[in-house]
C-alpha cells in the first residue's frame, strides 16, 4: 500500500478500531464482519418513515429547514461564471418576494468555478451555521474518479486554495468492487490531507460513494464504514450522474452507519443524499428519516445536506402555499 507518511489522527483511530494497518486484508476482515443488510426490511422501514404525515407547523418548519440544508448545485460541462453567479444569487435570496426565506447551506460547483462562486458570495461567504453560504467543490476527477492519484490530489488542493470550504470527492468504485479496500482508504485519507489549508484548518470532506454503482446495500454499508474510517467528514450517496442516485433506503442505511459510528466513537459524521430529490414531499421524508434514525440534532448544515438543484423551487412553491394559503406556479419563482 502506498501511503502518506504523516500520521493523521483519523488514521490512528482507524488502526485502533481495525486492530491493524488499514490494508486490504484487515479492512476486508472488518468490513465483512459488519452485520448484513436485508434489503426487503430496509426498504420497508424506509417506506414506513416515508409515510409520516407532516402537517401545519411541522411542515412550515420542515420547509425552511430543507432550504437551510440544501447544497444548491450546478455540475455541467456548460457551466460558466455567469451561471455560477446566478446560482449564488439564488442561494442568497431563494425567494426574492419573501425576505424571511432562509439561505441555502452551500453552492456546489466544479473546482474551476470556485473563484467565481467565492467572488459572487462576497461577504456572505462563510459557515452556514452562522447563516452564511459555503462553497463546495467536487473534486478527484468527478464524477468517474478515473485519473491518477496525483491529479486527484492536485484537483483537491486547487479547489481548497481557491476558497472551497467543502470538497466532494468520489471514491474509486472500481477499486472498491475489486476488493482493494486499502487503496480506497488511502485515497480518501490523502484527499483529506489535501484539504488542509496553510493556516492549519481544513476543508470539510464529503466522500461520494456512488451507491448506484456499488449496487448492493451490503456494499453501501461497507463503503460507508470505509469512508468514515478513512477520515471523511460526510458520506454522500451519489454524484447525480449515475442512476439510481439518492434513495431513501440508501440514505437510511448510511444514517444507520453514522448512528453506529457515533455510538462507537462519539464522533458525528454528516450525510448527504444527492441527486433525484426533486419535491418537498420527498425531502420531508429525508428529514423524518434523519430525525428518527440519528436524531433531530443532525438536522443542521454541518451534519446533513441535500445535494439538489430543482428541489429548491418546489420547496419555495410549497412555502408560498403555507404562507399565502393558495397554490403558486413556476412563473412566480426564479429559474436559477
Amino acid at each position: 500500500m502506498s501511503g502518506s507518511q504523516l500520521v493523521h489522527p483519523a488514521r490512528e483511530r482507524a488502526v485502533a478500531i481495525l486492530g491493524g494497518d488499514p490494508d486490504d486484508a484487515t479492512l476486508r476482515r472488518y468490513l465483512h464482519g459488519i452485520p448484513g443488510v436485508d434489503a426487503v426490511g430496509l426498504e420497508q422501514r424506509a417506506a414506513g418513515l416515508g409515510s409520516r404525515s407532516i402537517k401545519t407547523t411541522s411542515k412550515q418548519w420542515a420547509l425552511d429547514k430543507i432550504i437551510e440544508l440544501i447544497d444548491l448545485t450546478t455540475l455541467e460541462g456548460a457551466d460558466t461564471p455567469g451561471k455560477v453567479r446566478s446560482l449564488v444569487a439564488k442561494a442568497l435570496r431563494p425567494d426574492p418576494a419573501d425576505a424571511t426565506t432562509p439561505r441555502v447551506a452551500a453552492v456546489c460547483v466544479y473546482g474551476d468555478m470556485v473563484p467565481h462562486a467565492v467572488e459572487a458570495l462576497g461577504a456572505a461567504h462563510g459557515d452556514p451555521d452562522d447563516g452564511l453560504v459555503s462553497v463546495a467543490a467536487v473534486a478527484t476527477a468527478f464524477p468517474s474518479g478515473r485519473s491518477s492519484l496525483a491529479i486527484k490530489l492536485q484537483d483537491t488542493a486547487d479547489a481548497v486554495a481557491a476558497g472551497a470550504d467543502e470538497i466532494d470527492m468520489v471514491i474509486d468504485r472500481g477499486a472498491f468492487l475489486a476488493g482493494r479496500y486499502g487503496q480506497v482508504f488511502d485515497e480518501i485519507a490523502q484527499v483529506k490531507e489535501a484539504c488542509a489549508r496553510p493556516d492549519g484548518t481544513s476543508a470539510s470532506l464529503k466522500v461520494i460513494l456512488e451507491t448506484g454503482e456499488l449496487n448492493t446495500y451490503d456494499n453501501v454499508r461497507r463503503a460507508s464504514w470505509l469512508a468514515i474510517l478513512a477520515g471523511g467528514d460526510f458520506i454522500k450517496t451519489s454524484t447525480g450522474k449515475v442512476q439510481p442516485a439518492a434513495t431513501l433506503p440508501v440514505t437510511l442505511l448510511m444514517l444507520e452507519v453514522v448512528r453506529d459510528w457515533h455510538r462507537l466513537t462519539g464522533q458525528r459524521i454528516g450525510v448527504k443524499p444527492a441527486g433525484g430529490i426533486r419535491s418537498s414531499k420527498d425531502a420531508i421524508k429525508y428529514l423524518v428519516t434523519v430525525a428518527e434514525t440519528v436524531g433531530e440534532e443532525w438536522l443542521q448544515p454541518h451534519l446533513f445536506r441535500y445535494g439538489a438543484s430543482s428541489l429548491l423551487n418546489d420547496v419555495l412553491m410549497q412555502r408560498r402555499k403555507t404562507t399565502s394559503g393558495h397554490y403558486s406556479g413556476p412563473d412566480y419563482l426564479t429559474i436559477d
Partner: protein
Amino acid sequence: MSRLAVPKTYKLAIGGKFPRSESGRTYEVRTADGSFLANAAKASRKDARDAVVAARAAVKGWSGATAYNRGQVLYRIAELLEGRRAQFADEIVALEGVTRAAATAQVDEAIDRWVWYAGWADKFAQVAGNANPVAGPFFNISVPEPTGVVAIIAPQDSSLVGLVSAVAPALVAGNAVVVVASEAYPLPAISLAEVLATSDVPGGVVNTLTGSPAEIAPWLASHEDVNALDLVGAGALDWVDLEIAAADTLKRVLRPEQGADAAAPSLDRITAFTETKTVWHTKSMI
C-alpha cells in the same frame, strides 16, 4: 408322528421392545368358535403412557428421515409381510373364522396398502404443499409436516387390514404411532409388530397395545403429549367423550368409521396427520 407345536407368547410392542403389560394382566384370545388361542397382554394406562413416551422419542428421527428413506422403509414392510403371508393368514383364519381364501385376500390387501402408502412418502408433500404467490418480495412456500404422536384406535372388526389401513397413512408423513389393536383379534397386530421390529422401522415409531380400547383410549385421548387421535375403530366406545377429552389439548381428531370401507386408502388419511407449515423469506437481489 405329529410334532408338538410351540405356541407364541403375545406381548406388547413398545419402543422397539416386546414387554409384557406392566400390570401383569393378560386376557384370553379365542377363536371364532370359542376355543382358547392365546393369552394376549392386557395393556394398562401405564403401558399407554410408556408407549407415548417411546413414540415421542421416535418422532425426531422418523420425521427427520428423508421422504425417500421413509418410502423405502414402508416398502420394506410389504416385502417382509409378503414372506409371512401364511402366518398371518393362519392367524386371521383362526381369529376371524373366515375362509383361508378370504384371510389370504386380507393379507394381500394389507400388503398392497403398505406398498400404496410407501409410494406416497415422497409425493404427498408435492400434492398437499404449495408455492404461494404473495404480493410482495417474499419467497413463500407451504409444506405439510407430521403432526407428531398419533394415537389410533384400530378398526375392531378387521384384524390386519384395518390395522394397516390406520397405521400406514399416519407413518407416511413421519408421525410416530401408538395403536390400540382390535380387542378381539389382537394377534396379527403383535405379529405385525414383530415384522416391524425386523424391518427398518426405527424402534418407537409404531407402538402396539393390546387389551381393552375402552380402558386405554381415554388415557390416550387426554394425554397432553399426544397430538392427534384417530378414532376410526372407536365406534363402539363412548367416542364422543374421547373427542371431548382430546379437545383439552386441541388434538386433531378423526371420527369413527364403520364397515368394509373404514380407513379406505386415501391421501386425506395422510394429510389428516400433517400440519401445513408456511415459510416466508425475504427475496432481493441487493
